[in-house]
């Protein structure tokens, strides 16, 4: 089965510090791939490399079998790669509706849309994530959990083929986490492949088809959740070496 997204031996250096080191993996259609790892493991850097915000020092990234390593961020967005930001980036002066409408206008499904059409689609996405009641509020008036949903709605409005979620569950309580899990599953059911970075291991274990583990910028495991979580190296990365 051909991979939708392929990351091939990607490395990224920041002034001498290796953030991502020779990482390779694939993302298949209709798949939820979880990405876990201790803080500073390079997870957000990886997402930024895929979305095009930064470019790799070495390696290649392929989307639908074509290399996108040289494409700028906006072109990747139009091809169908959408992301949420861990440190959220709303358009503060715009209404919640218009925030999402930007995605509908400029994303993958965006060419040829009118403003009215885009707003309509934005409305749909906002209802999908559960923000249907705050359409007209200014984006900067929303609280934390609502902002996370807004980030999701903005990405979904782009009609992406690949969705990169960066810690959408951070700071949420158990009920809210279950709601987000439900939304992500429904997104996958629509045919979108999702890469989910998370710290909440229990949530991601049930959600993911596969788990990828990063540590110090390197991939140390890539398998089904049960296999990964019982892997010695993964336990060591999180808890440290056993003293026998």
């Amino acid at each position, binding site marked *: 089965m051909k991979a939708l997204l392929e990351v091939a031996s990607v490395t990224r250096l920041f002034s001498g510090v290796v953030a991502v080191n020779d990482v390779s993996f694939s993302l298949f259609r209709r798949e939820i791939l979880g990405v876990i790892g201790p803080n500073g493991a390079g997870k957000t850097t990886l997402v930024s490399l895929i979305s095009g915000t930064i470019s790799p020092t070495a390696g290649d990234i392929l989307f639908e079998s074509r290399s996108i390593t040289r494409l700028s*961020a906006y072109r990747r967005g139009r091809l169908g790669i959408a992301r949420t930001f861990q440190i959220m980036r709303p358009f503060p002066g715009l209404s919640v509706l218009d925030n999402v409408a930007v995605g509908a206008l*400029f994303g993958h499904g965006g060419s040829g849309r009118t403003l009215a059409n885009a707003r309509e689609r934005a409305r749909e996405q906002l209802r999908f994530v559960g923000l249907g009641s705050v359409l007209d509020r200014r984006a900067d008036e929303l609280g934390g959990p609502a902002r996370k949903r807004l980030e999701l709605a903005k990405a979904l409005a782009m009609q992406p083929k690949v969705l990169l979620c960066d810690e959408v569950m951070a700071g949420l309580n158990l009920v809210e986490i279950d709601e987000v899990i439900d939304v992500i599953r429904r997104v996958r059911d629509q045919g979108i492949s999702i890469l989910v970075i998370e710290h909440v291991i229990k949530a991601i274990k049930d959600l993911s088809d596969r788990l990828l583990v990063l540590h110090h910028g390197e991939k140390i495991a890539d398998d089904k959740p049960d296999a990964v979580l019982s892997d010695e190296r993964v336990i060591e990365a999180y808890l440290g070496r056993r003293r026998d």
Partner: protein
Amino acid sequence: MKRLLPILATTVAVVILAAIPWFGSDVLVQFGINTLLLAVLAQGWNIIGGYCGYPSFGNSTFYGLGGYGVGIAMAQWHLPFAIGMCLGAALAVIFAFLLGLPVLRLKGHYFAIATLALAFAMSAIVSNVGIAGQNIGLVLPPLNNDLLFYELSLGLLVVTTLAVFQLTRTRFGFGLIAIRENEEAAAVMGVNTTLYKILAFALSGLFTALAGGIHAYWITFLDPESAFDIGLNVKMMIMAVFGGPGSVLGPVFGAFVLSTVSELLASEVTTVASLFFGVVIVAAVVLMPRGLADLSRRFRAEGWRYLANNIRTYRL
């Protein structure tokens, strides 16, 4: 019905403005031409500064280029005014594309300063170019028809404002606003930020240059210092910001109000007018930082507390 009211009101206003030369004195018509052109400048700046969020100190460059386009075409090559306007516009747009690329990569106040530097340099450069008359400047063939210039200026203002209005209803305008609100997010969501910024810069330059061209022909004289006067750039910025950047009619109101106030004072005591201008700016920035448009919207609801709230939000 609610939609029609503002359109109707604006049309009536335009008709009244167009009729002024038949009722007003010569001085009033001249004041009108100046004010209308300033409004065009404020509106032009609004595109790059208000909607796109890049405060350009370089629009005076476009103004000068427009003026010199007309000046060179008419005084040196003896071509008609219309051709001169096209030349001026072309110069401005080319300039916007050439220099927009490096300069629009800079953020915030660095962009402002780079454009400021360009504006300074232009005056010095042009004063060394032979065909532009160097330091002495150019003298254009006179045309004593204030009525024509008035209606031309009004026409340009209407066109510019319509363009801005149309902008807000297109994908392009939406993209500009997204860039202003959060450029990185806009890029990731598929907005071609580089292209859009340059287009906004060029569009802004186009209208500014046309205003410069009309002004040059009107006063029939052009010299590098006054054509590229940075004070003019600051004036258009203040008018746009005072009136409400990122709104369709705000800059126009800002230009009308500030120009009128300035003129009323000038007829009293000349120096004090400029002084007052400065004081007005200072007071406006403290009390109504989001401009007249925002003031008129929120004053009804909040009254004088609007002013106090602004101070409270932004003070240390």
